[in-house]
């Protein structure tokens, strides 16, 4: 029997406020799924419904064949890593990590042994007798992880667990967490508002906005083919232009003011529909004309950022940003010079939502 996690048509109301609106997704056993969205999008509420801290107003949460919608949190085979870590301040590191086993009435001896193993796994061996407040933020984070993992949960829930760490530590922990997840083969459901974190770690991403799912897919799908304006804008930097979808014979284009951008025909969109297009800055080349879409414009601004530079180009009143690696800063175009920009047609994403 597999224990895939199914979230089915789940809705949660807090009084008059609908925090989560008809959300469904499945996480296959052993996969890393991220719920990504801005604060207030319902991602934490969704996670808390999986953990059992909130009961859905409508819908079901299932683990394999087992309906856990109304099951108390202490009976569910899920474990949570809290944003604040929620380590018990009055207990030692060892007592914290061993808490779940104590609740399951595992004998003290075995408990000590498994706590030891767990602390080794998170690379803090021998810290059993330390007090929680003696540990650094990063160490506390590892202890919180060890405490959640020791009960061998079917699903590990992580609520912005790296949010309190500084940037460098966070980047290291992202990689470590992902490795750990692959090593243990446990299902991870990870909540974050950090799109980069989501792209780095996830097998699959569910983008939430205003309690609803905007898009779900692999990191590549989400980044390369955003389906809504919200997703394109939220994940990474992008150029967003508003326009009208125009069908002409076999071809199609999006007319944005004076510029017409050729796109692949999309049957589901009617001629004359208002749409947006998204073109990622790094897809836009400057000074090449071979193939793809080429547009003439004028450089209005060049922003140098060290390894990359952002070139702002005015094309018939619209502004497009091209991002390029800086090999030699002498190669950068000058503001005010005329230029041609160019990108592959499949990198123009037509967005209807």
């Amino acid at each position, binding site marked *: 029997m597999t224990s895939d996690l199914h979230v089915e048509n789940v809705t949660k109301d807090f009084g008059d406020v609908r925090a989560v609106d008809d959300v469904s997704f499945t996480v296959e056993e052993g996969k890393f799924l991220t719920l990504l969205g801005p604060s207030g999008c319902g991602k934490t509420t969704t996670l808390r419904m999986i953990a*059992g801290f909130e009961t859905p107003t409508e819908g079901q949460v299932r683990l394999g064949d087992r309906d856990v919608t109304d099951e108390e949190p202490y009976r569910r085979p899920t474990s949570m890593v809290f944003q604040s870590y929620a380590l*018990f301040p009055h207990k030692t590191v060892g007592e914290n990590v061993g808490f779940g086993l104590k*609740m399951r009435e595992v004998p003290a001896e075995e408990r000590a042994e498994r706590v030891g193993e767990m602390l080794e796994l998170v690379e803090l061996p021998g810290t059993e007798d330390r007090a929680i407040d003696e540990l650094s933020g990063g160490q506390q984070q590892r202890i919180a992880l060890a405490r959640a993992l020791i009960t061998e949960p079917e699903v590990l829930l992580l609520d912005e667990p790296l949010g309190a760490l500084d940037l460098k530590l966070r980047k290291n922990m992202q990689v470590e967490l992902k490795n750990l997840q692959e090593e243990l083969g446990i299902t991870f459901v990870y909540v974050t508002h950090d799109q980069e974190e989501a792209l780095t770690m996830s097998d699959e991403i569910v983008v939430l906005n205003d309690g609803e799912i905007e898009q779900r897919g692999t990191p590549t799908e989400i980044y390369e083919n955003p389906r809504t304006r919200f997703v394109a804008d939220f994940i990474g930097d992008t150029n967003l232009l508003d326009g009208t979808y125009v069908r002409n014979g076999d071809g199609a284009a999006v007319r944005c003011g004076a510029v017409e951008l050729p796109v692949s025909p999309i049957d589901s969109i009617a001629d004359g529909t208002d749409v947006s297009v998204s073109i990622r800055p790094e897809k836009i080349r400057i000074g090449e004309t071979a193939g793809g879409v080429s547009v003439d414009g004028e450089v209005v601004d060049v922003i140098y950022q060290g390894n990359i530079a952002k070139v702002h180009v005015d094309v018939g009143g619209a502004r497009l940003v091209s991002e390029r690696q800086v090999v030699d800063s002498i190669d950068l175009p000058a503001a005010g010079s005329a230029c041609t920009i160019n990108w592959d047609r499949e990198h123009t994403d037509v967005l209807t939502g």
Partner: protein
Amino acid sequence: MSVADGIRDRLGSEDGPSPGLTAATALTYLFLYGPILVVVLMSFDAGRYGLRGELTFEWYANMAGRSDLIDALLLSVQIGLVVMVVSTVLAVVAAFGLARFEWPRRKGPIATYLVFVPLTLPIIIYGIGLFVFFTELGVGRGFVPIVVGHVMYTFPFATLVVAAGVIDLDRTLEEAAMDLGADPVTTFREVTLPALAPNVLAAALFSFTLSFDEFLISFFVSGAGAIPLPVRIWGMVRADIEPEVYAISVVVLIISITIAGLATRLRR
């Protein structure tokens, strides 16, 4: 204002407090502790009607031999312990009710009724009211009325101290415990109560010391068989100060300062 004044003023603020401010602060501490030191001094001084300047332990020896004082002290400790237990239990229950759970209607008036009114109304009014109440009931004066009065009197303080802890308590700690398999009862025992322990202990200590030092309520509801120490001390200083009162006062001060100090530290 001249430029020179401005510079001097600014330099002054860099230097920290002015001598005047420091002196005023020191004098205030002298004001707060001077009378307490006087009691200690008098308890070791041989003068019966004023300071004589001779060291003596006579008053302590006399005090130890006076069964009325020792009995009153023991009774006050006994009352304090009973009040401490009852008041703390009630305070924990009420604090959860006020700070966490819901009430069918608005909770503001209840908090006012439970905590603010008893803290605000004159104690003498409550003491008299309680005296009339127990007289009407035919209970009269004694141990039970004192305990009841002191519980009502210490309860708002204890509740405020515990409620502050409940409000500050990180609820994710309890969620984490449940998530790891602890049922609600276990969660309360293993996580909630230990996390609140400093506040509960502080509330207990405050309750004890408030009861131990309470005079006005006891004054009205204590009777021949049950006279707590403050009422006994009152009798001694009202008539004509007997020096033994300084000795027993030092004992009281040591007990209550120790407990108040502990409680104040815990509450932080």
